[in-house]
């Protein structure tokens, strides 16, 4: 049995955005704090720490998860993805991010990483997600700036592009 004592640090291994993480933390360390303050991946934000606002949403093994309701030790062996994975190494925005920018689907940008990760997980699982599904997923997020309409529009446009119904690259070029 692996019992990990409260005030000691214990080894934790998982994959973050495709790269191996091999570190240590106390059992009570929240995944939000570990990502942000141990690893320095500060794109995942903390808004409520009780699972309602959605700002901390990351993907764990392909599903959206509230990082504030996840202990770091729970993701042992998992594949974790965060907002930092969405743009390429040159900083070029991904398709969903670009749609957000075009539609002014963010203002302060604090809730945005969580929303992007929820939609990213949705589109990965349900390539044909319709507006009702998009809206249902978005009910798990609080945004105080935009009034949501541009977020829905951006998500719909990104979904259409992902399905190949429009080719934004061609339009832009």
């Amino acid at each position, binding site marked *: *049995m692996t019992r990990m004592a409260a005030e000691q640090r214990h080894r934790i291994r998982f994959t973050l955005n495709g790269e191996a993480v091999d570190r240590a933390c106390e059992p009570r360390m929240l995944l939000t704090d570990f990502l942000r303050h141990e690893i320095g991946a500060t794109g995942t934000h903390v808004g409520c*720490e009780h699972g309602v606002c959605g700002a901390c949403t990351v993907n764990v093994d392909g599903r959206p998860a509230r990082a504030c309701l996840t202990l770091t*030790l729970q993701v042992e062996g998992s594949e974790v993805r965060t907002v930092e994975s969405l743009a390429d190494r040159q900083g070029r925005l991904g398709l969903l991010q670009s749609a957000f920018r075009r539609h002014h689907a963010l203002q302060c940008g604090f809730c945005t990483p969580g929303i992007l990760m929820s939609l990213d997980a949705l589109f990965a699982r349900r390539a044909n997600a319709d507006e009702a599904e998009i809206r*249902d*997923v978005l009910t798990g997020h609080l945004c105080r700036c935009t009034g949501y309409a541009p977020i829905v529009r951006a998500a719909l446009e990104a979904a259409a592009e992902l399905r190949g119904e429009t080719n934004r690259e061609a339009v832009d070029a």
Partner: protein
Amino acid sequence: MKPAAFDYVRAESLDEALDVLRNEGGDARIIAGGQSLMPMLNMRLARPRILVDIMRLAELRRVEPRQGNIAVGAAVRQAELLEWPALDRDLTLLSLALPWTGHAQTRSRGTVCGSIAHADPSAEMPLALVALGGEVVLRSARKRRRVAAHDFFLGVMATDRNDDEMIEAVEFPATNGRRCAFREVARRHGDFAIVACAAVATERGVRLAVGGVADMPVAREFDILPASALDGALNAFAWDLDARDDFHATARYRRDLVRMIGHELIAEVTR
């Protein structure tokens, strides 16, 4: 808002988990998806000395038919049950109620059994279990026992589970062609229910269960009655639930909803 310190056991076998509960039951909590427990840890409402993570236990990660019931193991996440291929046919009520359980982002981690163990009077999973007349399979190092849903829930976050026990699985009677209906009223989509109702057709009539009003989900059988008699029976049910005021809703509003939605759902499953 950071949890108090606790030891953490990543159980590699069911016996390991049960051992911890046998030795330290009162100070230990099972953590599965953690979607109910973690907010309480973060707020320091709960301060267990030890957490036992059971999510690596493959034997708890199964949904399987079992003598007319569908058994859902303790490590089955709500999202996984939602994706179970036979859900619509065999657990029709769950297919209706699960989308109301939290949000996609919490269903992806939260478990069905965890929600039942938590015994929030407004939660959908306990309501569905009571509505269907299901059972909770409790397991300790000593024994396994089965408790009927209506005996399991004792009050707000209070259940018949002993400190040395954990929920191994819950068993929902399979739909078997019976009609089901579900409706919930919350302040916003995804909030805890102010009133949630589930109806299941029975041989004599309808079994109607209500969550969010009493301290636990409560079911009552309704025979097929003429409309006026049904109104009276529903009114009696609504009052018997001993609804309370809080700042989201009044007792009267809750009773109104029980009467109106109850009527609607009964009509729906007896149509």
